[in-house]
């Protein structure tokens, strides 16, 4: 997975520039996904034999052989690989070995829950982190800054599953105002989303603070101050926009973190998402399901990176014109 960097936006010619960037990016993405698909296929097969896990330990060797043939796992590895690659362009991922159901169905049923959780967490993270970071930057070195930074440090160094359990104990068990787990209405979303957001709040707030401090010390802010603009006006119209660039990069990375962090959070809150599904698929050695979920995660990263890259051209005119 490639991390987004500012330099990847190649100097495009005016007009067709954005399109060319997109085309290059999409082609790169396809190559990346091909390698991910191949790696997933071979790595998951190194982990062992799913038939042993599906059958009871007292199954006979003949019973194992029958099931293995039934699942198509007795075919040569190359045949299985080519079959799998052939299905990818049509989004055919085969049948889950354990659930005996098309993988695409199993996976798609779970995607909304994970996206919902990640999106809610991201919104919470931004709503908390942007004011906190800006506030700390403006109060640099003073008590307010120290306070925010201390809170942020705690948030960043606390494991998500622990935050989750503490939140459950307070809001579900003691106060009984929110459900402890499960999936359903808006109330079910609050605790897992907050749990998931805690780490991201910390990362984004810290970065915004330092980025903002840089910006506030620059010439054009001094000029703006000299023109007599209010602090609030300067922060909103000049500071934020210029401080946003590195923050956008990090938010892109955070989407990955949120999807990854969802694995633990989904378990603690019994959230029916893709993270929990993937962990179980790995434990069950459900080859087709592992392959498809790994591809899903990879595709999400690739798409987010692409969006981050494109957003530079909007946020920072210099990325567009430099050559």
């Amino acid at each position: 997975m490639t991390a987004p960097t500012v330099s990847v936006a190649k100097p495009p010619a005016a007009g067709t520039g954005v399109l060319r960037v997109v085309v290059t990016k999409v082609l790169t993405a396809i190559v990346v996904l091909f390698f991910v698909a191949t790696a997933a296929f071979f790595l998951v097969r190194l982990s062992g034999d799913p038939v042993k896990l599906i059958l009871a330990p007292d199954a006979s060797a003949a019973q194992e052989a029958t099931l293995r043939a039934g699942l198509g796992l007795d075919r040569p590895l190359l045949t299985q690989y080519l079959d799998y690659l052939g299905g990818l362009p049509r989004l055919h991922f085969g049948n889950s070995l354990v659930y005996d159901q098309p993988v695409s169905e199993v996976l798609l049923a779970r995607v909304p829950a994970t996206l919902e959780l990640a999106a809610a967490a991201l919104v919470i993270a931004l709503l908390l982190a942007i004011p906190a970071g800006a506030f700390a930057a403006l109060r640099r070195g003073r008590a307010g800054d120290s306070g925010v930074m201390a809170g942020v440090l705690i948030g960043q160094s606390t494991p998500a599953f622990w935050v989750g359990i503490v939140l459950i104990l307070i809001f579900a068990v003691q106060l009984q105002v929110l459900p402890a787990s499960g999936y359903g209405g808006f109330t079910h979303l609050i605790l897992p989303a907050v749990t998931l957001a805690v780490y991201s709040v910390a990362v984004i707030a810290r970065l915004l603070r330092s980025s903002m401090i840089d910006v506030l010390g620059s010439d054009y802010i001094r000029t703006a101050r000299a023109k007599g603009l209010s602090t609030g006006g300067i922060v909103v119209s000049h500071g934020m926009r210029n401080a946003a660039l590195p923050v956008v990069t990090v938010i892109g990375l955070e989407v990955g973190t949120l999807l990854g962090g969802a694995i633990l959070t989904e378990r603690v809150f019994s959230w029916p998402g893709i993270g929990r599904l993937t962990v179980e698929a790995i434990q069950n050695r459900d080859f087709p399901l592992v392959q498809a979920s790994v591809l899903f995660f990879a595709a999400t990263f690739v798409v987010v990176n692409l969006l981050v890259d494109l957003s530079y051209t909007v946020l920072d005119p210099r990325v567009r014109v430099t050559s």
Partner: protein
Amino acid sequence: MAPPRSRLTRRDALRLGGLALPALALPGLLAGCDSASGSVGSVLRVAQTSDPKTLDPQKQGDLTSMNVLINLFDTLTTRGPDNQLAPGLALSWTSPDPLTWRFKLRPGVRFHNGEPCDAKAVAFSINRLLDPATKSPIVELRYVKQAVIVDELTVDLRCSQPDPIIPAKVSLFGGVAVPPGYLKQVGSAGFAKHPVGTGPFTFVEFQRDHQMRMRANPGYWGGRPSFDELVFLPMPDPSSALASLQSNEVDIVASLTPDAALQIQGYTGVSIRNYPGIRTSYLSLDTTAGPLRDVRVRQALNHAVDVPLLIKAVLDGKAREVPTMFPRESFGFDPSITPYSRDVGLAKRLLADAGFPNGFDTSLTAQTGDSNIAEVISGLLAKAGVRARVDLVDTGTYTSRLTSNNRSALGPIYLAASTGWTLDAESLVQSNVRHDRRQSRWSSPAADRLIDAEELTVDPAGRQRAFTALQSLLKQEAPFVFLYQIDNIYAVNTRPRWQPGVVGVLGMAQAQVTS
């Protein structure tokens, strides 16, 4: 199988109450409201670690799946409250010849879609299971060649070799009846999406990793369940499952470990219930290599591992010591055979006699989930001078090594456990005692003869004699270190009344719910 009288009256009272309730409870439930909020009405909510793998009962072979599916489907035989084999879809069974088991079916049973459950349906079900195209992971019917219709309500299971415990094997996996007409109409995939059985509950909705909902079947042959809706919730994390119990989102949390159960002690409104269980743990010893070839060394290990102490210290007392590896409730268990005395001094003397006055180094392999128990066993062995390094492996690796052709793949000593749900001692030894079995690491012609006698004889008295002799031999030769059978542990709130059987299956037809 009429329930006791007192229960009937209580159920009737609840049923009357139930008539007043639906107006309040059902509309919300039908609209798919959160099961966690608002009125729970006459609903029973059960949490266990995971979902059924599939809703097609012939395409799964694990107890977690069966726990849910047993509420939708019936089996030919079942287990009564006394854990004895009782009529299910079959009213009676006989063995007219050693290779045949004949089942007389209960008349008038219908599937949830109205289809009759007769000999045609039962024979179809068994034959579907046996068909390699079904890819069924159920292994119990390995000696059944085919099911044959004798008359409208009689089915024969024809075997390739005698199998005395077929009636026990069809009390769960393998004994499920599926509807042939419906399957023909919707196909296997459609059936797994919307299962139709003969059971006490009918299918409503399944959202994987979220919930499985069922409704009481008013036409159930065993009588309509006393509550309206049954919901299974998959909760992999015991802490959050217990939190859900405390915040009144579930009524029963099943399959808890003793240490998880301790978390909930002292909270009001919730309690821990433990019932006798049959999951039996033992250490398998590789008698083909190293010090463990000597019977005195194997006996020394049995004297050294202080099982009562282990149960008290690590399992919070929620287990029972077993003399050999047969659970007390299984057919074949002989109470006259007593556990090893726990005596470190004797263990050391036996080791010295065998030529190991300073003990020896070895290893003990266990699954990661059993790390506590493995560490404590290692500590107990160390007291007698046997220094066993604990090797932990994940479940997948463990299972692969267990069933591999290399019988030493899990090292000289490994910790194993087995749930012999057929309640027949055969289940505990079938794969690891006769010298030619997949997991056997012991060669004893006497044991082989006894295994043949108990596996191929249909007469119970003859089988019991073989089992008794086998237990004496197992204790004497000690190819295993015999440990304990662990309790089934549940955390419950004040609403449900339910008594699980020793197998621990979550069949809820007889449960009652108070609001």
